[in-house]
């Protein structure tokens, strides 16, 4: 622990960053425009990077700096750039269609947050980290990303939901155990990168086949 900040203040800053992360998850859930969705995803990655770096600084865990750097490079800069390019190439700047209307989705989101907080409370009492309180928020963010994937009918927002879920899992790992081992983190980063490339290829295939990225068309693919 550094002497510059008191333990209470460190906890408060971590809680603040976690709350902003949760707020951004809700903002993504409520967002209609696909370009703003990508910007929100980048913002979420930025908050994740800040909180990882801050936890690394507060606890003296050097490897968290590396994972913060990976987050910055991959999730704040590279993936949003790829997604922006994809949107331009696919010409899909339309508003995102949701299956349930947005206020209802947000209310379901609140229920999920309550559920996540309740589930995480006994677990976080076992953890000995300064970040243990934020485990509930991380779990809530995972569930909210799940909800976003379920309620969107187009392929690109679903992929963004998937990426947001990966962000929150990363955050959960930092909250519970100060991050995963370096090998695992590098592996996941590579997985996400490869996953995006494969999904991008899929986007083009789906559009070529149906002239649309609405994944409901995939249901017609029965033999």
């Amino acid at each position, binding site marked *: 622990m550094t002497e510059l900040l008191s333990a*209470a203040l460190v906890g*408060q800053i971590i*809680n603040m960053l*976690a*709350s902003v992360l949760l*707020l951004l998850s809700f903002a993504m859930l409520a967002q209609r425009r696909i370009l703003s969705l990508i910007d929100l995803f980048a913002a979420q990655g930025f908050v994740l990077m800040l909180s990882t770096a801050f936890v690394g600084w507060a606890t003296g865990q050097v490897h968290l700096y590396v994972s913060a750097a990976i987050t910055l490079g991959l999730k704040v800069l590279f993936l949003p750039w790829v997604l922006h390019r994809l949107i331009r190439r696919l010409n899909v700047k339309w508003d995102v269609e949701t299956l349930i209307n947005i206020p209802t989705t*947000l209310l379901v989101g*609140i229920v999920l*947050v309550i559920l996540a907080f309740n589930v995480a409370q006994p677990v976080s009492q076992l953890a000995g980290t300064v970040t243990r*309180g934020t485990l509930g928020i991380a779990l809530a963010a995972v569930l909210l990303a799940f909800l976003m994937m379920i309620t969107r009918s187009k392929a690109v927002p679903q992929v963004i939901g998937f990426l947001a879920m990966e962000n929150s899992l990363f955050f959960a790992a930092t909250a519970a155990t100060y991050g995963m081992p370096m090998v695992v983190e590098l592996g996941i980063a590579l997985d996400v990168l490869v996953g995006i490339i494969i999904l991008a290829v899929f986007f083009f295939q789906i559009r070529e086949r149906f002239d649309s990225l609405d994944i409901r068309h995939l249901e017609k693919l029965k033999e």
Partner: protein
Amino acid sequence: MTEISWSGTIAQLTELALAILLAPLLTGWVNQCRAWLQNKSGPGLLRPYRLLRKLFGKDAVIAHGASALFRTTPYVLFGCMCMAAAIVPTLGTDLPYAPVADAIALVGILALARAALALAAMDIGTAFGTLGARREMMIGFLAEPALLMVLFTASLLSQTTSLATTVETLSQRDLAIYPSLAFAGVAFTMVSLAENARIPVDNPATHLELTMIHEAMVLEYSGRHLALVEWAASLKLFVYSCIGIALFFPFGIAQGGDAIGLLLALPALVVKLAIGGLLLALIETLSAKMRIFRAPEFLGTAFLLAVLALLIHAFLES
């Protein structure tokens, strides 16, 4: 209940008089700031006072078929807003009148004013009045739960629903980052925009337009009745600004009822109100009025933020 002291009574009366006298000035300041931001010269700070004087000097014209409800509503409205202004601590927290109503009752008082105005608007039977009343009730029923949740968050922090005690606790605590208060602050801002007929929800400058809400309800009022309604609207804006200041920026408010503290609290309050008014004008200039059917989404977001504030406080900060 504590004993009523002389200093407390004086503080209470000063506060109420100050609210009633300063409220039109705040409205004038917001309008002036907005005019400046839009590159206009503006009507001047004292314009609301001149309007009130003009209206009080005119005869009140009342429509045929208007019941007593229509005539009493301006007084009910003004009375409700005065009562709300008396409960909210602006200068000091030692208010003998404050135990009369807590934060929940405050929301009730504001609801009473809203219901009275909506009924009066429907009383005349014009299309505009009914339309405005229905819209106002829709906005109101969406904004109220969010406002209650914001007040509950502050109450949870201080373990009481009494507004004066809450503000006293909040102003005495150590400087710390409360994410829950930040969320509640944003939610409260959104609710106040909707409740005070401000731009993303309603346009206060509009007159005789299909999109108006508040103005549609008061179309039939004239003379002293209109003056009271306008004054009550200014007071409502003042009360909401003061709730926001008291809950989220309580620093500088006087503890107890000492005269020097109250004297020092006055310039602090004026500066905070001026900054708040400027921010309100900025929000109004930067945002466009949304469709009425987007209002549920806007207020739903406010409710969501307020509930999140409550949850985050319950799970993270306890």
